[in-house]
């Protein structure tokens, strides 16, 4: 049963190679129609896709309503930023009150800092998980949201560690487009493998029916904890990348509205679909940027809309409501992209097709 080189496999590899070439060309500036602004948007798309995957793991695949993402991102972002910055830059950034000596002296390669950021978020989620993962539904959402706010407030007040409300600036812009897309690809592969492993099936079993899952010998708390920790690790990595992409972070960046943005991506894409999350992260993040003109005021023929800050967010919120009211499955439901599925669209439907394809 060695499926060494089937057609779908070849196509997948070809697409990955194509993506790698494109990303390399973009980062070399060889594609003149893609300017720095667009690169920045693409980076953000990738980061939001990673964050969406993180939330989808817990919410979409394990069926826990958790909204703590912003808090874990903040941890990842600050740890990555502070560990990757050079001591000199840190000294300049912390001009109001000097940074703690030990932290000021630390300097490590970006990849190590990023991993530590993810790990820090994971460790924190382990401790938060103990009290909150016993809760269900709305209670879990409220508790996780609360913890995220607590983390933000703590960061706001740890002047000598986080530079308080002024935040951290001049974070090394190591995470270029190659980084962002490489990490995203890794995360997608990881998620696909996880979801199709026995543990992933256990997560989905818990989502479908907790009582039945428990009757199948699945330890609910242990598996929820695994999902929560992995999700937080991914959120921490996403936060670390984001810090490097945007180069300046403040605690206010990690308000609960951030969790809402990610929730929008996950719900629109389809809870329980990795494909859906990635697609909707790109669509929404890009659309949000390109719809900035809505906020600036515009005229539609005779109607002139004045400048309304946040009009595009209103539009997105309305979109979310419409989806939730009429189209709860999102773009993809819990389906995933597959080459077979794609071929089947273009092939006339015949009975018994399904079996041949298997």
């Amino acid at each position, binding site marked *: 049963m060695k499926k060494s080189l089937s057609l779908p496999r070849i196509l997948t590899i070809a697409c990955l190679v194509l993506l790698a070439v494109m990303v390399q060309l973009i980062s070399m500036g060889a594609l003149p129609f893609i300017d720095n602004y667009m690169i920045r948007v693409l980076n953000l798309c990738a980061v939001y896709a990673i964050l969406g995957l993180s939330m989808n793991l817990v919410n979409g695949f394990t069926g826990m309503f958790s909204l703590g993402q912003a808090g874990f991102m903040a941890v990842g972002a600050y740890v990555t930023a502070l560990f990757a910055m050079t001591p000199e830059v840190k000294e300049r950034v912390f001009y109001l009150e000097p940074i703690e000596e030990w932290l000021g002296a630390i300097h490590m390669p970006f990849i190590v800092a990023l991993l530590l950021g993810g790990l820090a978020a994971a460790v924190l989620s382990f401790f938060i998980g103990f009290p909150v993962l016993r809760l269900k539904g709305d209670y879990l959402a409220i508790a996780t949201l609360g913890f995220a706010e607590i983390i933000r407030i703590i960061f706001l007040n740890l002047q000598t560690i986080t530079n308080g409300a002024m935040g951290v600036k001049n974070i090394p812009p190591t995470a270029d487009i190659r980084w962002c897309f490489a990490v995203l690809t890794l995360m997608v592969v990881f998620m696909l493998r996880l979801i199709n492993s026995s543990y992933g099936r256990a997560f989905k079993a818990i989502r479908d029916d907790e*009582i039945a899952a428990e009757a199948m*010998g699945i*330890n609910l708390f242990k598996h929820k904890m695994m999902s929560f920790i992995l999700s937080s690790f991914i959120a921490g990595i996403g936060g670390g990348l984001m810090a490097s992409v945007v180069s300046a972070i403040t605690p206010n960046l990690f308000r609960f509205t951030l969790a809402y943005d990610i929730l929008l991506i996950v719900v629109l894409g389809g809870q329980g679909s990795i494909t859906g999350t990635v697609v909707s992260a790109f669509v929404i993040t890009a659309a949000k940027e390109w719809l900035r003109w809505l906020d600036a005021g515009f005229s539609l023929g005779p109607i002139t809309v004045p400048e309304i800050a946040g009009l595009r967010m209103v539009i997105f919120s309305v979109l979310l409501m419409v989806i939730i009211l009429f189209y709860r499955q999102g773009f993809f439901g819990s389906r995933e992209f597959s080459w077979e599925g794609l071929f089947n669209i273009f092939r006339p439907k015949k009975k018994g097709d399904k079996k041949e394809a298997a």
Partner: protein
Amino acid sequence: MSETTAARRVLHTEAATMRFGGVTAVNNLNVEVFEGEIVALIGPNGAGKTTAFNLITGVYTPTEGKVFFAPGRSGEAPQAETEITGKKADAITRMGMARTFQNIRLFKTQTVFENILIGQHLHIKSGLFSAVLGIGHKEEKAMRERADELLQLLGLDHVRNEPCASLPYGLQRKLEIARALATNPTLLLLDEPAAGMNPQETVELTDFIRDIRSRFSLSVLMIEHHMDLVMDISDRIYVLDFGQTIAAGTPAEIQNNPRVIEAYLGVDADA
């Protein structure tokens, strides 16, 4: 199969009682199941049968009393009896007791095959990362092979890749039993396995239960309303009414027990 020599006891409850606020759903329950037996738990609606299952399988902790179980896996000799009162449901399943539900609880977004795979997750040896990184691919392969074996054995292989929610009712019930068997139990608890089945399916189910009992060396405790099935298949029967055990014995003894007849037919008109 009346017991001659001292068969090993795999399950017993000791004065198990379950109260919900003012309602005593199960009162002073003393059930015994011996190795290889099929034991039925019958009684009118609301008698407390499902509640009895729930306190045996760890869904509830009994308000009073104790539950004992001789753990072990199918095909191996069960171990000495241990108390399982208050243990969690998943831990009890891992000890070798599996169940089905009155209102079918399949993993409805999953296929038939995946439902069976999930039933095997409790025995997984690979850790999370070896499973994800593919280091544990041998175990995954073994799980898949065993799932296919089980499906074939139970006659479900023709619906292997169907989403379980699309199966007809009878097959869903069967799949739920198959999923319970995937956990490799020594004791199987079935909550109304014939509910919603037509007479033909019920007869088939009777054979099916007998078959899996011997094939998987199981002991079975079963709640059932179809009296033909119960009388045909059971070695012993317990009758509950309003939480009380009003009778216990062989099918013949139960059929002629006046209290049972009364409980089922309501208060006797000429009493």
